[in-house]
């Protein structure tokens, strides 16, 4: 269990509150003394910060086109011994009666010896509908229904901590109700854990959406996921930088998870927080080349609620870990400390500032205001315009690349409309900032089952090139990453 010092039970520590008040008072004083100079300083710092965040994220993301997650070959899977280590699967459920059947079907397909598997279905005691659906399924081993007495905070990490106390597996994974992991994911995790050093205490599976083409929102969302799980995270993991975990399909060495104290029950992005705790312990996260299919939010309201929770969690996590910046720096090291600032602090800050800067740009374009021009002298202007043009282009390109990496080729052109998506993100960010003040621990529940469940596009159905060709030896061509992908183009073979 985490101590209050490392928990989001309080949004701000006493010291942070004092520093915050001090900054506000200082700002007021500076505005009174020389408002323009103060405004210029704020703009200059913002532009430089923007440039740093954009450069870091773009470069790290795009560099991942050459890299990828941890692969486990079919041969390695076949060579697994019959007596496998025990594995606990935890699935927190709350108001998920609609997806219980498909969830249970998916979990039943997990390719793992039943006698070595423990599946904990963690259900709140007042969620009668979900409990009823579970009981009607007449579940036997390895399923266990864990009924949790309603208590504050009403969050997923609280429930997961209770499940952790009951977990018996050597390894542990958390899935969400709408998740559909690939059946061999647990075995792949076992192989991957074994061939890596013990410092690797967590494997994050790749999350992909099974409904990328439902509407424009899901197209953006799916590409964003591709950019995040197939590019950014592998690149961060490869460099040993802190990895922001996704909230599901995290595989752990159970003992390490217990040493870390489990999840922070008051943090609404407990996964991100745990990823940072892993980094602070000088442990590592790697990305596992196995897919868990999820449902992309297809409704704007639902999406905003979900995204605002994520961004609120980023803010919470940043404030919690920055309670003692010196300790954080000591534990992470300089490089990881800076990466933390960019990834955890920079992400919500950019989404908050974007509308302000867009409004300034628009206002200047329409009015040519000398006041705005004064705020952007030549060096600041150049940095700002470069960030805006180059940075936004780079982020757009990351989304296009994300779509290509996933094989969602038809979505590539839609990413050119991404500024609309960013606008939506900014709305969610401001909602998150407000909620951080008034309801910091409120968990915005995401509705699932909005899209009819169907099979995700199987990987082997892609025709032609697979964009992620694996180099098998010294030559340029080699084993293709996935079965069923077509051969590379060579002249003279004609159309298939």
């Amino acid at each position, binding site marked *: 269990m985490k101590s209050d010092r490392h928990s989001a039970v309080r949004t701000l520590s006493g010291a942070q509150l004092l520093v915050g008040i001090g900054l506000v008072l200082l700002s007021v004083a500076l505005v009174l003394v020389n408002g323009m100079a103060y405004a210029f300083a704020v703009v200059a710092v913002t532009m430089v910060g923007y440039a740093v965040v954009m450069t870091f994220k773009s470069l790290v993301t*795009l560099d991942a086109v050459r890299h990828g997650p941890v692969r486990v070959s079919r041969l390695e899977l076949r060579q697994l011994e019959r007596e496998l280590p025990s594995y606990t699967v935890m699935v927190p459920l709350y108001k998920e009666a609609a997806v219980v059947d498909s969830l249970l079907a998916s979990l039943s397909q997990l390719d793992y010896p039943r006698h070595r598997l423990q599946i904990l279905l963690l259900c709140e005691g007042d969620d009668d509908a979900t409990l009823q659906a579970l009981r009607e399924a007449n579940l036997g081993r390895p399923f266990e229904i864990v009924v949790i007495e309603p208590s504050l905070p009403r969050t997923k990490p609280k429930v997961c901590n209770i499940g952790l106390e009951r977990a018996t597996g050597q390894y542990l994974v958390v899935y969400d109700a709408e998740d559909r992991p690939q059946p061999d994911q647990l075995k792949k995790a076992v192989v991957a854990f074994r061939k890596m050093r013990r410092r690797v205490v967590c494997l994050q599976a790749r999350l992909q959406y099974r409904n990328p083409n439902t509407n424009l929102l899901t197209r953006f969302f799916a590409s964003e996921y591709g950019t995040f799980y197939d590019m950014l995270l592998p690149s961060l993991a490869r460099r040993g930088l802190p990895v922001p975990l996704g909230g599901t399909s995290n595989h752990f060495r159970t003992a390490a998870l217990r040493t870390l104290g489990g999840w922070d029950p008051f943090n609404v992005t407990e996964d991100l927080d745990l990823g940072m705790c892993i980094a602070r312990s000088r442990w590592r996260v790697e990305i596992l080349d196995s897919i868990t299919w999820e449902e992309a939010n297809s409704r704007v309201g639902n999406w905003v609620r979900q995204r605002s929770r994520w961004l609120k969690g980023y803010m919470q996590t940043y404030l919690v870990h920055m309670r003692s910046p010196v300790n954080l720096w000591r534990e992470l090291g300089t490089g990881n400390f800076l990466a933390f600032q960019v990834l955890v602090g920079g992400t919500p800050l950019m989404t908050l500032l974007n509308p302000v800067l867009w409004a300034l740009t628009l206002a200047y374009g329409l009015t040519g205001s000398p006041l705005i021009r004064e705020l952007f002298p030549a060096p600041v202007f150049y940095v700002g315009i470069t960030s805006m043009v180059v940075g936004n282009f780079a982020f757009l390109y990351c989304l296009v690349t994300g779509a*290509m990496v996933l094989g969602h080729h038809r979505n590539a052109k839609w990413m050119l409309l991404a500024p609309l998506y960013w606008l939506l993100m900014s709305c969610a960010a401001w909602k998150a900032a407000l909620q951080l003040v008034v309801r910091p621990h409120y968990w915005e529940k995401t509705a699932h089952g909005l899209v009819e469940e169907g099979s995700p596009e199987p990987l082997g159905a892609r025709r032609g090139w697979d964009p992620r060709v694996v180099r098998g030896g010294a030559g340029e061509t080699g084993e293709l990453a996935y079965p069923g992908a077509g051969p590379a183009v060579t002249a003279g073979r004609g159309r298939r």
Partner: protein
Amino acid sequence: MRAPDQVYLDTAPFNLTLVPPSHSNRMQRLLARDPGLAVSLGISVVLSITSFVYFYRLDMILGYGDTEARLLITDAVLHGRHPGLAQLGGVWLPFPQVYMLPFTWNDFLLHSGIGGALPSMASYVLACGALYKLVSLLTKDQFAGVISVVAFSNPNLLYLQSTPMSELPFIAAFVCAVYFVAKWMAAGRLHALFLAGVAAAVATLTRYEGWALLGLLTLVVVYACWRGGLDYAAAEGHLVFFGMIAFLGVGTWLIWNRVIFGDMTYFLTSAYGTKAVNATQLLGVPAPYRGAGNLQLSAELVGWTALSNIGWIAAGLAVLGAFRLAVARRLHSALVLALLLAPIPFSIVMVYTGGEVITDPPLTPGVDPANVRYGLLVLPAAAFLVGLIAGVRWLRWPALGASVASFALLFASGQVNFDEAVAIRHSQNYELTTTAGEWLQSHYDGGLVLAGKPSHEDLLFHSRVGHGSVVYPGDRDEWRDDLRDPAREVSWIVMTDGQPPDEVWVALHGTNELRDRYELVYANRLVQIYHLGAT
């Protein structure tokens, strides 16, 4: 069994295990895996440095007038009265000048030409590396790649790589783009397609031939998608992925012209644009020798300059290579060749429409050679074909021998590009402007200098008056104001009575303003220099 000094990076899909510490550097690892690349780069570095020293000692690295003009642009960007990227202008594509910026901050590096030559030399080495990779990819033969680099390292190219010109950066970007597209076609890797886009964008920002290359590259990407059996959505996705990067250069340039000069086609239509400059140049060419409007002559001029640049032996080898390609029916290599030949049809069209002026004494007797160096743009294609020949084992050594013989013959008979530069150096106008510039250097006592384009580049370069003391058309409002009333701030006025006279001559020569306030302190048949001081 894992070696004790290996780490666990075999988790990566590419099975990158670290080699022992003696090869811990990534470049070292790359070269250890590909000794042919090491040899090619070694040859190119040695030739690059040797050639530079040779031509530097002949005082010819600033032979072309354009070299000084390009260096002056970098001086204006860094040290001008209104320094900044806007001084890059809107006619010449900016990348060669931007590439020179890190090396021309220093007066010696600028005026000796070394600062401008260094990027050119680096581009040559990069082009050799890319050409090697391209040939070895398609022939699966490292030695063939090395031989293609030998064929590529032609004396005309080696002279040009020693000068601050745009051809070598363009050739490097051009060959890189073709290599990465070929790699993508072979292996389907998105990373290669991305890099092809980057190289294409750089090429489009270096020379206008890059725009033709871009068009062809796009067609090849589309064709390769169709040929590879991709459905429409996949082809569209690949095109978006490639095009977003590749067309960035063209888009940026058009927007730049619009933002800085108010006209997206400023580079074409302005008084200093390619049309106007070439029209002026054409006036000096007798009508029967003008390629403009004469398709046959345009093709002959382009063909002849290509042949005179690469030499007869290399041309013969290239023909053999093309024959082999046709017989073997290797479509992949044919597509690559088509890309490498893109500059040829572009040049023919440009000469025919008056967008380029090429004159070469064998075809245009009595006229000084001009832009003969453009023929070098066919060299990558010729070297590629030599590489294909060398991919046949029993032809390997003959191809190498012939390439070396070609080099020796071209060197002994004189490089056409070098001859062009010598002709420029010995032209009357050049001698007159540089003499005037040297006079100004020895008599300059401070104050602003008003000087027009285009002749001012040679003169100002040799005067060593920094751009911080020059008022020139790039200063726009001040330039216009000083043409009307120079005495308000200008101490020196330089004007040239060329064909046609420059703007300063037109605005001020013979005026009362000039007569009353300025004293003629220097004059030759072309240049007059005035100094502030009432007569």
